[in-house]
Structure formats: C-alpha cells, structure tokens
C-alpha cells in the first residue's frame, strides 16, 4: 500500500515560549512499528498527544490512513491508545472495559460479546471477564488495556510508555509479547518511550528526538551503529567518542587516516562524508578490543592503553582504559574466559576500520 498509516507534516506545538514540538515530519508505513525515543521533555509525548487529538497543534497536518484528522476530536480519530497507567475504568469489569469502545460504536450485543472474547483470548486473559481492574496484577491490567485498544480495530495503535510501570522481568516479557502481537495483527504502531532497550528490541524504526526535533530516524541498527550526530551516538548505549581530523592523505581502498589525540586511526568514511573539518570518531565499547602488543591483528588501528579498572558484569566484562593522551576509553568483552585482564595491565586497544563510525561534521548544537 502506498498510503502510509500515519503521515505527519510540519507538526508544531508551542507552550508559551517553549517550542515543545518543532515542525516534525514523520511517516509510519502500514504494519510498521515506529518508536519515538528521547529524554523527558524532548516532545515525544506531546507528539503522541497531538496524533491522538488531546493537544491541538499550532501548525502542521496529521493524516491517518489518508484522512486528515488534525481538526477532529479524539473520539472521531479511530485510534487505539494504551496509557502508561493503563487508565482502565475501575467501575467496570474486564469485559466491560474491553467492550467500551464497541459500545460507543453501537456494535450489536452478540457481536460485541464475540469480539470481546476474541480480544481477551488474543492477550491470553480468557476467563477473567468478570474481574475488576483492581483485582488484576500489573501485567494483566496491561493486557486488558491492550485488548481494549485493539478490539475496536483502530486505524493504528499508539502506546505511551506502556511498560514503565512493570517490574523488570515482566517488562521484558511484555516487550516480546507486544512485538509479536503487533506483527501478527500487522497494525501500524507508534510507541513512545525513554527506554533505549525497548526501542532497540521492539521497533522497525526509531525516531530519536531532542528538543522537539527528530535527530535521526532509522532502523535500530542505523541509530545504534550509524548515529547521525553526537547526541544520538551518546543517547543510545555507551560510546567512545574522539575528536578527529583528516591527515590530508587521499583515501586508499576506501580507507582514510584520521588524527586523534590518542593516535592515528584507519577508518572507512560514510558515503557522502568529506574528510574535512572537525570530525568525531566513535567506537562502541564492544567493538574496541584489547590485545597484548605482539598479538594485534594486521590492518587495524591499535593504540597503547592501560587498564584502569575491570568491572565484572556477569556475562560481560567492562574494561575502563586510559589512552596515551590521558583520555578515558571503555571496552566491553564477552566473559568467555579468553583473556583475563587486570588493573594496571598495559595493552593495545584495537579496532578494525568497520568497527568505527565517523560523524562529520559534528552538529553545531551537540
């Protein structure tokens, strides 16, 4: 289908002097799961509330399944919403909660009962029809909220931090479950979260937001491995970031040499990037390896480093390094029993050209 499920253009919202959402463009394809990720105050929730119709935008348009909805009230938008606190109606049973949207649509009684049962089955809550929300666990309430949003067969699903009230283990289960359900139903979804783990595991695409703008939108791999700027690089996961500058030499075999304070580096430039000006060399900790001076592979960048601290994480081991120029660096190794580094060891920190990512030029508002 050519028409996206959701198309947002130039969406803007100001609160007094503060520009909460600054001319955002966003398209969500049919069946796609898009996450709005960012720190609090980045505008992600305001964006969601404008899509849902709870906040009136100052400018911009919102199209749902090709229908302009920016001037429609929430009850005419045909959206399924799941709130952070679930917002279940405490005076209604589970079945009445799930059936509420159908009742508002004047769906006949028989069909309603059938669809409610189907929806409860979908979220594995069959048999709890007559319970009240207060008698349910957090995870069950979450499922009821999901069933209630899905039973109306909405144009799309909006999820507002639905997992943040659950404890860790349940949260991880629900991630998988919601993802699976969303894919099975093929329903376009916008998910708002500040949790990068949720964003990476659940999304088809992630829009990283800051100060009312989308800093980067792309697949989880894109935003994690090929961040567009320093903010995205730093917001998702940990990263080593070194200011760098081209040594002026011509690229050979697609590789260029960059000068950093820690030493020279051999990297591949992203296409379209000119090796000029202030660059930033980034390496994820899990891509920075440690070796003894005589066992560094050929064709890689290797810098002398000293192990300052070894942090045991169970499955992984975090190595805090000090580079030659005195700057700190972070490496993370699988705890596979191969190398045992200890505090004070001198070593070589190395990475292959494809392990590094060059951000160029550094964005002016980083």
């Amino acid at each position, binding site marked *: 289908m050519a028409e996206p499920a959701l198309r947002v253009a130039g969406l803007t919202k100001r609160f007094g002097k503060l520009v909460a959402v600054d001319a955002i463009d966003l398209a969500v394809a049919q069946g796609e799961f898009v996450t709005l990720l960012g720190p609090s105050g980045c505008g992600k929730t305001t964006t969601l509330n404008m899509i*849902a*119709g*709870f906040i009136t935008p100052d400018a911009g348009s919102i199209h749902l399944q090709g229908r302009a909805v920016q001037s429609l*009230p*929430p*009850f*005419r*938008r*045909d*959206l*399924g*919403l799941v*709130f*952070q*606190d679930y*917002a*279940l*109606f*405490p*005076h209604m049973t589970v079945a009445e909660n799930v059936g*509420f*949207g159908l009742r*508002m*649509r004047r769906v006949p009684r028989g069909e309603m009962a059938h669809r409610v049962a189907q929806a409860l089955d979908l979220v594995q809550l069959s048999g709890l029809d007559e319970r009240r929300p*207060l008698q349910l666990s957090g995870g069950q309430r979450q499922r009821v909220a999901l069933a*209630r*949003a899905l039973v*109306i067969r909405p144009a799309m699903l909006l999820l507002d931090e639905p997992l943040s009230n659950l404890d860790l283990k349940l949260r991880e289960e629900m991630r998988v479950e919601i993802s699976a359900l969303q894919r099975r139903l093929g329903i376009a979804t916008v998910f708002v979260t500040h949790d990068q783990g949720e964003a990476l595991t659940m999304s088809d695409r992630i829009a990283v937001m800051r100060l009312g703008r989308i800093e980067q939108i792309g697949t989880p791999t894109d935003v994690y491995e090929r961040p567009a700027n320093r903010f995205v690089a730093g917001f998702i996961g940990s990263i080593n970031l070194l200011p760098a500058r081209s040594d002026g030499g011509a690229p050979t075999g697609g590789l260029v040499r960059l000068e950093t304070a820690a030493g020279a580096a051999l990297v591949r430039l992203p296409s379209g990037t000119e090796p000029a000006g202030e660059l930033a060399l980034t390496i994820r900790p899990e891509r920075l390896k440690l070796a003894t001076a005589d066992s560094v592979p050929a064709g890689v960048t290797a810098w002398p480093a000293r192990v300052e601290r070894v942090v045991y994480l169970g499955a992984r081991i975090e190595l805090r390094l000090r580079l030659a120029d005195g700057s700190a660096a972070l490496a993370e190794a699988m705890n596979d029993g191969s190398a045992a580094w200890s505090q004070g060891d001198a070593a070589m920190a190395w990475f292959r050209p494809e392990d590094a990512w060059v951000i160029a030029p550094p964005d002016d508002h980083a």
Partner: protein
Amino acid sequence: MTLPSRLPWAALKLAVACVYLFMLGPILITAAVAFNQDNRSYFPPRGFSLQWWGAAFGPQWLQPLLFSLELATLAALISGAVGMPLAFAFQRYEFPGKTLVRAITLGPLILPSLVTGIALLQFLSLVGLGRWMGFWALLIGHVVICLPFSVRTVAISLAAMPGNLEPAAASLGATPYAVLRHVTLPLATPGMFAGMIFAFIHSFDDVNLSLFIARPGERPLTVAILAFLDFGFAPTLAAVSILSMLIPLALVALFGRFVGIGDFLYQEAGNG
C-alpha cells in the same frame, strides 16, 4: 520488645480506652436511664419500665421527629443535587471569582452555625420574608450548612480519579457527553452519596441554626429536646435521645449496604 518501644503502645491503648469510655459510657448510661420505673433519672435505673420509650413515640415527640427526618432528607437531596455541579465547577474549570464562590460555599464549615442562623433570621426579616420562618427558612439554612459536605466529597472523588480515564474513554470513541455519563459520573456518584449522608446527619443533628429559625409547630427534634430540658432531664428525654441517635445510624447502615460509600466514610479518597 524493649521497654522504650512498648511504652508508646501502652499509651495508645490507654488513649483508645479513654475514647471508648467517654464515647460509649454516656450513651450506655443514657440508654439505661430510659428504663427507670419512676419519672426520675436514676442511675443505675430503679425498677424496670418501657413506658418512657412508649412516650418517646407519642405525638409530642413523633411530630418533631418526622419534621426533622423530612427536613434532613430534603436538605441532603438538595445539597447533593447542587453540590455535584458545584464540585465539578471548582475542580475542573477556571472562572472569574472562583476563589470567592468557593470560599462562600465552603464557609459554613468554619463559620459557627449559630452565626449563620442569626444572619438568616435577620436577612429574612429585613427583606420581608419573615413568614418563611419555620420549615422553608430551616430548609434554606440547612442546605447552606450541609452543602460543603457534598461539595467536598464529590471534589475528592473527582480529584482521586486517574487523569487518563477520560482521555482513554474519548480515544475509544466516547463523545464528551458519553464520557461524562459512563465514566465521570459513575465515579463521582459514591462521593455524592457520601456527601448526602454527611449532609443528612449534619442537618438531623443541628440545633444552633434551627434554634433561631424554628417556630412553634415547625421545630426539629433537637430544638424540641432542648425546650423539654427546661423541665429537667426526664427518662423520656433519655429515650428520645437514644432514638435520635439510632435513626441516622440505621440510615447510614442501610444506605451503605446499597451504594458503595464505605471508602468515603472510613478513608477519605478511596480507590475510585
């Protein structure tokens, strides 16, 4: 348990015992007095007789009792009906003079009802509505002093409502009217009922305001009891007092069975 940690518990138990003693003690003694053989308030009672209880149901007492019940019921219904929209307005909307209107509405909570009574008496006389004295003036006065209760309890139930319930209903296709009817009102109703019960009890118990506005033949039970006290504390009065205490209690118990007001009477903001 060590001594320092046991001491506060002992003090608490003592305090609770005192509360029971001074709350239940007088009531039990009054009840006992009503069984005296002679028209004297002996304690412990001498002899046994039910005649004073019979007298309590005589026309002399039955008439003010029915008058009080009628007054309290109407005062409760009206303050419930007026209090609900007022609470909504205070809780949900900003309007000019809101602070003032709220202060006036809730004022009787802190203003002595004696003052309200005198003021109402003066007002009705001055504007030439002195003939309203008696039932209608009492009703106006009682609604004024009962209104804060229903406004407060409805406001509490509105404030306790999770903020996302109404948006959630709207997102499911409920029009603003449907949201009000299916979500907001059902959740505010227990608060309204609780407020009405408080109003009923407050009206039924009131003597301060009623004292100024009642007139012969149109006086509530409390005023009738006060007037009878001029003749001393007779066993009849004991029986009447106990009845006037049991009737509202029975009503609360009865009402509480049919509508969920428990949370409101026993814990301020229930779980919704």
